[in-house]
């Protein structure tokens, strides 16, 4: 597979390490009332869709950036690659 890095251009996926669903960015609020339930879901339950999947890849043999890659799990087609840091900020993780 080839991941078209937003800054570096196309790179062999072998340079990357895969983590999983990009929902892992959405770490629950530990202070929330049902934090244990939320953390259980965060830690363990996955949509695991057959089709479009937003997922986290880490460019370990590259610029060390975490990326959010939108990839179809049936065809492996990649339709979007973004810096996870930007995505995390967009989701309000920078407070």
């Amino acid at each position, binding site marked *: 597979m080839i991941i078209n890095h937003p*800054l*570096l*251009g196309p*790179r*062999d996926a*072998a*340079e990357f390490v895969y983590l999983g669903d990009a929902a892992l960015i959405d770490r629950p609020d530990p202070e929330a009332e049902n934090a244990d339930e939320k953390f259980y879901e965060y830690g363990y339950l996955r949509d695991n869709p057959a089709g479009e999947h937003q997922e986290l890849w880490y460019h*370990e*043999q*590259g*610029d*060390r*950036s975490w990326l959010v890659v939108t990839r179809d799990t049936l065809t492996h087609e990649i339709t979007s690659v973004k*810096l996870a*840091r930007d995505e995390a900020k967009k989701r309000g993780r920078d407070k």
Partner: protein
Amino acid sequence: MADFTLTAEPFLGRFEQHYDDVKLREIYDVAVVSAAIPLRKLTAAKKAVRAAFGVDLPEVGLSALSQDSAMRILRLGTDQAFVVFPRAQQDTGAEPHIADLLGGVFYTTDQSDVWVTLELSGAGARRALERICPLNLAPDAFGIGAVARTSMEHLGTVIIRTCDDSFLLMSASSSAHSFLHAIETSIANTA
């Protein structure tokens, strides 16, 4: 008090070898300082680079020579650059030097001893790299000054194109011998 002095040793013993149309040597007197751009300080960082080196902070994936050609600035990531320059073997002052030059804007870390640096040059350089480097090194895809981090034979490597047929290759110093072996094998296999 101290009766002892420590002598630095180049990682590959100043390796140098000429093959038919390829030359490979260890660049043993090189300082590497990483300079991280503090959060939300990109503008200040750019200014500092301009002031220190007389050139613009290169875009990610590119490098630039300082105005006096003494230093090469590699932009390896959004918030990370390396400054690479010659130094004396015993010299350990690279990091404070760069920190000063950059006016304290960046977070600097001495990386000189993290990396072993090889220069691979000559008409056969690309042919040898074809065996271990997954990147497209065609001049229109990876021109002079281009820099990338990738993996060669299971070793993380920074590759910089310095001329048409000359590349700097930096890899972890602890595996310097394996790295050299990988490059030498590539040269031998394509000779």
